[in-house]
């Protein structure tokens, strides 16, 4: 027997605060309510409603409403929603009485049965009538419960959707199979209840606690706004050292998010971080960074922070989003991360699809797009790239390492004394799409390929040495920049999904690193007369501190590019050497990254993780120390050159 003092939960409603109540309807709702009551975590009036008097008498909620006393006589609805509905209609006065006077009413119910499916819409209607916001948390029945119940649930859901302001839908099926396939059914149910209780608690916290960065109802509805959507909900609470990280980890572990994999498809993600007074900005930053790795860049992140003294020294992270049922079902099977990309970004089946498109339609719009806003990445931009690389990977595996390499000459470009060379570069603007797709670079690569043989032993030749050196350095920078791409705090950073794309390519790609080097050489070779003057400047087109006049640097190219972009057709050879900064989203750095990506990933997935620099890695030996943050929030422990590159990439 659980000991519980019912009087301990007298609501103390401060006049200014939002008045909330949680209504559990039917068996499932009652269970969730019990869970909430036991946890005593939510500052709300708890009301249990049921037709069955026996169930109701076991409920621990302080307020109870027996539905349809005269009609049902204390007997359950027997799985008939009609009965449930009528019972609720009979008791509508009582319902209104308890529900009235609240700002927010949370309904939780299990759909599919009699009381839940039948009464919930009525209660929602009444609650709406009192002028409260109505939130519905509902569970869909297990599939073993039969199609009839599913049908009832869906019918009820239709009705509820019209009445509730926001709907958080849990699917028992998914919880069942994801949490504990082997465990007892009772445990599965308990877990489900717990999860729902958590979600209610989290949502009510989000809505009621005054946040530093406040999340409102609008955010919540935005996050949940998917037709017939299922809720992706993750909640993590942790205390002690690394509590932020731990909390995120736990939140991502939530079965409804499927280890964070499902987040790859969301368009809107609500993140709420709550902590006691000891919550630091650093922790919040770290949490968001960590999350950024799990969320595609296009996702709209609704972010909120609240300090709640009640939480003491623990930190709570709540993730809330929704996903269309169709999307969910098709992608639920464990798929490689690349497939987790938003649909419109997934690799296209073949090169053939792409090329004609590139030549005609996509060329102009894409090229034009960067012009207005060079900094933020236009969403469609990455798509062709990805398509290009991966399509290539599947079409002609051996070409993969070279194709991206064609772009590496970012650095060789300025080879002859940079100042003079760069202006020459300027008149070679490429339509972004051309660069993006890299498919047009194919011929160039093939030209380069034959010369591969002559350079198999790379470090030995004198003439090649410079290039090798360059490659090493480039590789370094690439790795770093790749790291940057992965770990940049801005979750909307563009490279992210691409990075997730990598492993798949890696499988197809060549597996020897030497192959990469070989491939690199011929490409880098062509302009040997002048020794490469290797400097950061060349990796990095703009260097404000050293070269203030951007007109001399590659910056000029970058600047000029968007304007001239769509017009000039360019010999493909040049395409390979032109600074790929055309695409504002991925200037030179990004493209070298690409190369790096392929090179590194060649040996397979394991290799990829090896090179997966977190932000921590960038900080090198200072990773254990307190970061030195500059005004803009940059981490000064990260090498200066690395940061400069990142800045330029933006």
């Amino acid at each position, binding site marked *: 027997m659980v000991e519980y003092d019912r009087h301990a939960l007298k609501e103390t409603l401060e006049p200014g605060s939002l008045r909330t109540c949680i209504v559990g309807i039917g068996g499932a709702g009652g269970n969730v309510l019990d869970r909430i009551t036991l946890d005593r975590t939510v500052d709300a009036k708890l009301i249990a409603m049921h037709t069955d008097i026996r169930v109701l008498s076991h409920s621990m909620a302080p307020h109870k409403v027996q539905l349809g006393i005269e009609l049902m006589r204390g007997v359950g609805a027997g799985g008939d929603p009609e009965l449930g509905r009528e019972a609720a209609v009979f008791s509508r006065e009582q319902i209104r009485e308890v529900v009235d006077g609240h700002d927010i009413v949370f309904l939780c119910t299990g759909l599919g049965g009699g009381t839940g499916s039948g009464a919930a819409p009525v209660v929602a209607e009444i609650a709406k009538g009192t002028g409260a916001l109505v939130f519905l948390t509902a569970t869909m029945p297990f599939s073993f419960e039969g199609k009839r119940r599913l049908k009832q649930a869906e019918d009820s859901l239709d009705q509820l959707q019209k009445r509730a302001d926001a709907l958080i839908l849990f699917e028992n099926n998914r919880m069942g199979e994801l949490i504990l396939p082997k465990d007892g059914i009772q445990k599965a149910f308990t877990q489900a209840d717990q999860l729902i209780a958590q979600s209610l608690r989290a949502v009510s916290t989000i809505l009621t606690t005054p946040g530093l960065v406040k999340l409102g109802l609008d955010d919540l509805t935005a996050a949940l706004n998917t037709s017939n959507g299922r809720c992706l909900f993750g909640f993590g609470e942790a205390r002690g050292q690394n509590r932020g990280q731990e909390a995120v980890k736990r939140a991502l572990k939530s079965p409804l998010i499927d280890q964070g994999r499902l987040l790859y498809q969301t368009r809107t993600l609500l993140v709420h971080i709550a902590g006691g007074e000891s919550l630091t900005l650093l922790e919040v930053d770290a949490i968001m960074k960590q999350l950024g790795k799990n969320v595609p860049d296009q996702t709209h992140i609704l972010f909120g922070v609240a300090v709640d003294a009640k939480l003491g020294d623990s930190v709570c992270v709540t993730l809330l989003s929704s996903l269309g049922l169709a999307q969910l079902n098709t992608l639920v099977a464990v798929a490689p991360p690349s497939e987790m990309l938003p649909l419109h970004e997934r690799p296209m089946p073949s090169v053939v699809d792409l090329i004609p498109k590139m030549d005609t339609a996509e060329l102009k719009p894409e090229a034009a797009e960067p012009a207005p806003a060079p900094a933020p990445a236009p969403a469609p931009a990455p798509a062709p790239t990805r398509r290009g690389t991966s399509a290539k990977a599947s079409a002609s595996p051996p070409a993969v390492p070279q194709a991206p390499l064609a772009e590496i000459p970012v650095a060789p470009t300025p080879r002859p004394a940079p100042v003079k060379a760069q202006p020459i570069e300027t008149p070679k603007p490429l339509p972004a799409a051309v660069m993006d797709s890299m498919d047009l670079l194919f011929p160039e690569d093939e030209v380069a390929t034959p010369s591969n043989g002559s350079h198999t032993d790379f470090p030995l030749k004198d003439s090649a040495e410079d290039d090798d050196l360059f490659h090493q350095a480039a590789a*370094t920078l690439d790795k770093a920049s790749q790291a940057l791409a992965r770990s940049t705090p801005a979750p909307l950073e563009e490279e992210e999904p691409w990075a997730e794309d990598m492993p798949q390519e890696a499988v197809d790609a060549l597996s020897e690193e030497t192959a990469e080097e070989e491939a690199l050489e011929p490409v880098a070779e062509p302009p040997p007369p002048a020794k490469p003057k290797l400097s950061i400047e060349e990796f990095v087109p703009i260097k404000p*501190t050293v070269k203030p006049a951007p007109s001399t640097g590659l910056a000029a190219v970058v600047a000029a590019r968007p304007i001239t972009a769509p017009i000039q057709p360019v010999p493909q050879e040049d395409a390979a050497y032109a600074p790929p900064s055309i695409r504002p989203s991925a200037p030179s750095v990004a493209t070298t990254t690409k190369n790096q990506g392929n090179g590194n990933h060649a040996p397979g997935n394991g290799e990829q993780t090896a090179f997966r620099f977190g932000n921590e890695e960038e900080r090198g030996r200072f990773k254990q120390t307190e970061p030195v943050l500059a*005004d803009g929030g940059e981490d000064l422990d990260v090498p200066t050159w*690395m940061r400069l590159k990142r800045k330029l990439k933006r």
Partner: protein
Amino acid sequence: MARSTIYAGLEIGTSKICVVVGEAKRDGTIKILGVGTAPSSGVRKGEIVDFQKVQMVLNDAIVRAEEPSEVMIRTVFLGVTGGHIRSLSSRGAWRLPEEQTEITEDDVESAKEIARHVEIPQENVFLHSITRQYIVDGQEGVRQPIGREGRVLEADYHIIHGVRGRIQNAVKCVREVPLEVEDVVFTAIAAAQVVLTKEAKQQGALMIDIGGGTADYVLYEDAMIAASGCVPLGGDHITQDIAMAVQIRDRYAEELKINEGSCNYEDVEPDDIVRVEDDNGFMIAEVERAFLNEVIHMRVREIFEQVRMRCDKHISRLAAGVYLTGGTSLLKGIDVVAQDVFQRRVTRSGSAPVSGVTAMFEKPQFSAPIGLIRYAQILDQEKPFMSPLLRLGRKMADLLSAVT
């Protein structure tokens, strides 16, 4: 009276732990008796992260300092630094009581009290509160207000504060050795005592002590300290930048930085290649000198820019310019970068000449620990000299007052 005192200064730096034993003479000179250094470990960005390692190395350093000086080190002046150290200037005004016209000691104390009453984060403690000057009825630059006529006395303070726990940790670590800590000194303050001459302080000078983990700076104006602080970036960061750019281990990067590194990347022959060899003489990496130097340059520039950002408003008034000291100031071309960033005359400097086994100790690496001795000496000089008889008298008076 040529009484002299022997002090020991201890700096637990990011790259080395250094103990200096020096004799501070009453006439203001210092004689270095012994110096013990040991390569540091367990210190990051000027702060101790691993007690055990530090204590082990510290013991070595102490033994090395004790041997030549034939002094048993019991108490030390401990130099501390770290990114948490902040500074601020504060003034406290005290209006004298109506009937009183002459400033007394009590008034000065009251003014000080008010000046020191500043908002600092709760976990912070004062490391130094340095009287810059007194202002009597708006007249600035008064050094000794007691006995003057005036209505309003202002005390102008420069306060250096840091996180209590982190300062305590350093002290604790040293106490466990065991050594008694006589005073905790912000290293930049210590170093400035030997790097900056009186004239430089008068004219206005910025001293930057760039060590392994931090760049500590002190800015003097009109012989008064105007700004101070710590940028937790230093030689280690340069090394790390190199290590990550060239892809070699930190150890080789450090060697590369010391032997080949320079901040000058513009006039380097483009085909000048630096080779990195491992211990067996095998080449492990090659890097173009221009590239290497540029990596260094960028970091060094950033460090200076960070310093500049923190004391920007004073920079234009520095007649004596910028003084660089600390191990990283040995980097080639660093003065050019500093010149470029600060647009002021740049002097690379070790400590001012001291007597004793000085030959090596004028190196900039030793500015701070030698400065600690000088600091101790200054503290000692500031104490009012009391003859033994007077001291006895005071004691008796105390006793009597306690009894009555």
